[in-house]
């Protein structure tokens, strides 16, 4: 057992000497959280808009100003015809064109249900969807405003519209940073622990010390523990630096228990350390180890629900995500951060992570033992 201590001691001496490690642990979380937190913004703002107003009435002008009063749109001008508006869309000058038909005001008053057309640039599907949503909101708002003035064709009294006021729980302002920032913490822990473990084992292969270590009384299990334990500590540090960075930069502090997040983090790291060991058995150089880790980590990230909600995925791919330990950790981090969910409601995720972690670390270790002979 004391040999594990010596191996861990040696590993920390090496980590301390390596400036890049210090950077990775203490600076990278801040940079990533700043970059992603600000840049990965799915809120849609300042969409260039143009109008085709064929009615030129007071009501149509009211519609125009309603759009322009909103921060979502930036007024880019009027187009004389629908064709002109379309060509503006084609060359990318605008992303949305609103076409108001002739006799819009008259039809509205007589209850003839005039139709306003919105043409949206759908290249970026995500923001197009959001733009469409905002159009609906503005329409609803105006209808409410105009309701007293509009008549029904059969002369019956005006009716009241039911208003829907959505209220987003746990993320009131529906700001993407609340969703993204905890996600970054989860991916940071994944990437860094798997990278460092894989590369540190392969480095010993490269310089030949692994072969030297094999011809000492060190048992292979001791060697694996000695190589992974230090990076679990590094991952744990990283997790806390991430938590600190999220709080200091975005004022986003977790609602739930820190202790729970620590526990889940450590369980989750079994999987990433296992991935690191696995990569080291495939690779002969540190670059190869990086490629292997990157290959798996990318899938893990894409299928974790970090950027793409799992509910949006096809059923078959949804099933695949159940095999992804990061899926559970992502869920746990967000739950603890935004909802403050108590641990008892997260036991399923913990169990899955534990099972995956144990399987991965044992499987990778068995492979490692076979490889080093």
């Amino acid at each position: 057992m004391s040999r594990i201590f010596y191996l861990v001691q040696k590993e920390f001496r090496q980590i301390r000497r390596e400036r890049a490690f210090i950077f990775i642990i203490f600076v990278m979380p801040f940079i990533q959280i700043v970059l992603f937190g600000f840049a990965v913004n799915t809120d849609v703002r300042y969409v260039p808009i143009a109008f085709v107003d064929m009615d030129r009435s007071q009501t149509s002008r009211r519609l125009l100003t309603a759009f322009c009063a909103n921060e979502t749109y930036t007024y880019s001008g009027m187009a004389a015809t629908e064709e002109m508006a379309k060509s503006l869309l084609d060359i990318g000058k605008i992303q949305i064109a609103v076409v108001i038909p002739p006799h819009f005001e008259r039809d509205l008053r007589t209850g003839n249900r005039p139709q306003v057309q919105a043409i949206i640039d759908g290249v970026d599907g995500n923001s197009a969807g959001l733009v469409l949503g905002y159009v609906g909101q503005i329409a609803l708002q105006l209808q409410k405003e105009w309701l007293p003035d509009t008549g029904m064709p059969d002369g019956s009294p005006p009716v009241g519209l039911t208003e829907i006021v959505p209220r987003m729980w746990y993320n009131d302002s529906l700001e993407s940073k609340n969703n993204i920032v905890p996600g970054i913490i989860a991916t940071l822990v994944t990437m860094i622990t798997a990278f460092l473990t894989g590369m540190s084992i392969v480095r010993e292969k490269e310089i030949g010390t692994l072969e030297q270590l094999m011809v000492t009384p060190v048992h292979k299990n001791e060697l694996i523990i000695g190589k992974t334990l230090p990076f679990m500590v590094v991952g744990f540090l990283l997790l806390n630096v991430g938590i600190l960075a999220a709080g200091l930069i975005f004022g986003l502090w977790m609602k739930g228990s820190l202790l729970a997040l620590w526990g889940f983090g450590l369980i989750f790291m079994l999987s990433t350390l296992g991935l690191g060991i696995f990569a080291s058995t495939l690779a002969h150089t540190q670059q190869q180890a990086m490629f292997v880790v990157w290959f798996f980590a990318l899938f893990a990230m894409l299928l974790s629900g970090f950027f793409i909600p799992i509910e949006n995925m096809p059923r078959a791919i949804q099933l695949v995500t159940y095999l992804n330990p990061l899926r559970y950790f992502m869920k746990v981090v967000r739950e603890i951060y935004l909802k403050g969910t108590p641990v008892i409601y997260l036991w399923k995720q913990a169990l899955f992570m534990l099972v995956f972690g144990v399987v991965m670390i044992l499987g990778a270790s068995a492979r490692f033992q076979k490889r080093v002979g």
Partner: protein
Amino acid sequence: MKPIVTMTFPVSIQNLKKSYAAVPAVQNVSIQVQKGEIYGLIGPDGAGKTTIIRILVSLLDADGGEVLFMGRNVSQNVRYVRSNIGYMPQRFSLYRDLSVRQNLRFFGDLFHVPRHIQEQRLKALYDFSKLGPFQNRLAGALSGGMKQKLALSCMLMHEPDVIVLDEPTFGVDPVSRAEFWDILKMLASNGKCLLVSTAYMDEAYLCHRIGLLDKGRLLAQNKPQVLIERFDFPLYRIRSEQPHKIYTQLKATYFEKHIQLFGDGVYFIDRDKSGSAAIRRRLADLNITYDKFEPVKPTLENLFLELMI
């Protein structure tokens, strides 16, 4: 009786066989190394030196034959072998980002050498390696020769009786190589048993006994001087600025099997014992021009090339 016989040889390899996917790497090699002896495994790259060494230190399994370390079967006593043998792999393996002292202490710790004994050994190791003044320097900042002495020292922290070195002087400057061999000789005179592989022929003369290895076969083994005496044909050197040209000319003639190509000329083995004058006449007949024709003493290289045929 058997254990007593094998115990006189801390290293005993009998009829060792090893193949990599049907390609034979080692074929029927038998080597025994005594206490106080330096045994040199001599051969070109790919001769099987590393394979034999890795089987001896338990990193590889043999396909056939018997490998004994201190009288014990290696494959059945892996832990015993690994705890007691001293092994230095092909590249000198140490941690470049640890200091000299930290490297030494790390290996001492792994072998459970008590701290106070480690301090004594450090002193002795610093003495002969002259690494003392550099003990706090990072291993990566040492010169090639010093790195290699550090690797050797790390391996000596647990005072192994059997020391196995795989091409320890590869890529090291001649002065450092000479210093390194002085240390090896000192270890042998202290009763250690050393098995060293090398591709440098000049180092073969520094061993007590050598085995000439080619394509997995042991061509011959004995004391270097005894081996050279086996070369019992007169040998001549045809000196030339362009030995390669003469070599290709002769290669196409009856003398094909009589010549060896070296950097300073073509060596002529007088198998028929026809004498210097007769050979020179034949060379003149073949219109071969050269700078000088002189009798020379055979070296291990000549013997090696002769045995390889």
